[in-house]
């Protein structure tokens, strides 16, 4: 169990490094080595650690545990073929972690990050639409059933392309340096992560690495189907690189523009769902 979590953490951190490297190369910079994020996490874990005097101390520490906990839970949900709705729940609960991180420190920058993460909560909506579309096709929200459906009917990526696009947008909105990552924009220092340093930051990096792994793996599993681990990792890498390209060439949107765009995408998907519901009876 724990060994798989450690594996996923390292792959996730490696993906973060590759993400940075690809962005740098697209923008014509040399960029950091791809294992930079692993070193980063280790570095943070060796740094001096304490809790800011202004912070709400219990919450400040607890969110780090929750961040790692929910995404390890999500990984097991994926592996054991649990409910897709539960995965969606974890994704939403990640929002609470983001709020908690920023609010608990008392720092104005953290607070700004938290407020922006409240605003950007609209990024959950496309995922709900994705879940609904998948349910329309497969009649089940158990990940195992969805995987079985795809082995019979072919990948959902082709059958339900708009849903895949929505999920892609969802993953994009959670990537670092992307057009939707307003909560960690550099004008508010590190946003909601500003005050989490040392071990706390290392813990958060572990949680985020698991998050990247889970989201990419979920995309492959839900829209392409169950694959051997090596092939799945390769596909995840491809998805990641395409995301990095998007992140590299798009500027960060202003906070409320992200809400508008995500709501519009959801609106388009709702229309698609209604049409689909009528067509499929």
């Amino acid at each position: 169990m724990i060994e798989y979590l450690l594996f996923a953490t390292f792959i996730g951190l490696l993906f973060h490094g590759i993400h940075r490297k690809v962005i740098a190369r697209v923008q014509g910079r040399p960029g950091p080595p791809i294992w930079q994020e692993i070193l980063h996490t280790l570095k943070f874990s060796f740094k001096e650690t304490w809790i800011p005097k202004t912070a709400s101390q219990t919450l400040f520490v607890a969110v780090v545990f929750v961040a790692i906990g929910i995404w390890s839970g999500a990984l097991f949900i994926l592996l054991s073929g649990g409910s897709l709705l539960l995965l969606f729940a974890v994704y939403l609960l990640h929002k609470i972690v983001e709020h908690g991180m920023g609010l608990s420190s008392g720092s104005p920058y953290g607070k700004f990050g938290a407020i922006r993460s409240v605003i950007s909560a609209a990024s959950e909506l496309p995922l709900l639409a994705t879940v609904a579309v998948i349910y329309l096709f497969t009649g089940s929200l158990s990940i195992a059933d969805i995987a079985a459906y795809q082995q019979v009917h072919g990948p959902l990526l082709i059958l339900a392309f708009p849903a895949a696009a929505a999920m892609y947008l969802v993953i994009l909105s959670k990537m670092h340096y992307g057009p939707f990552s307003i909560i960690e924009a550099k004008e508010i220092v590190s946003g909601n992560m500003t005050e989490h340093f040392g071990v706390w930051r290392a813990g958060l990096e572990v949680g985020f690495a698991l998050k990247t792994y889970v989201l990419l793996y979920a995309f492959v599993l839900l829209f392409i189907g169950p694959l051997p681990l090596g092939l799945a990792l390769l596909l995840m890498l491809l998805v990641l690189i395409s995301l990095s390209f998007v992140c590299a060439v798009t500027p960060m949107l202003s906070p409320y523009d992200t809400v508008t765009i995500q709501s519009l995408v959801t609106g388009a998907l709702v229309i698609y769902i209604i049409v689909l519901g009528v067509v499929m009876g």
Partner: protein
Amino acid sequence: MKTNRSIITRMSATISKVENLTGLYALLVVVVIVLGLVTLPSITYYDDQLYEKTLNPASTLHPYDRGGVPFGTTPVKSQYPENSPYAGYVTTYLTPFSQWLADTTHHMGTTIVAHPGGIIDEILYNTRGFDTVVETSILFVAFGIASYLFRRET
């Protein structure tokens, strides 16, 4: 800033104002209600209601008359009769302690008789004891907020 505002920017500007919130929500409600009115003919009323409202206008107890024997059973339909064996009795909703009191003495009625509001009575008659707890909690919380705001200094 007037120049070159794209449609997305303008929409963002609208939704970023707190004052527009109520209007936006109301618009959404109206849209759904209109859609609902369109689909209204396809919705049929289900006759065999669990919580029926067949009243006897001739009765002096008109709104609350559910028939039955006073202090005895009243024929109340319930979804899961095995969960509420006392349904229809005056003593339907008793806490374990009150149940014990009622079993041993003659001094116990229902626990929730004193609350105002017809809706609670309706619920009481409809085998939905847990709802009364939540319902009164809402009232209690609303009262708590109001009294706190009223009593605080400045």
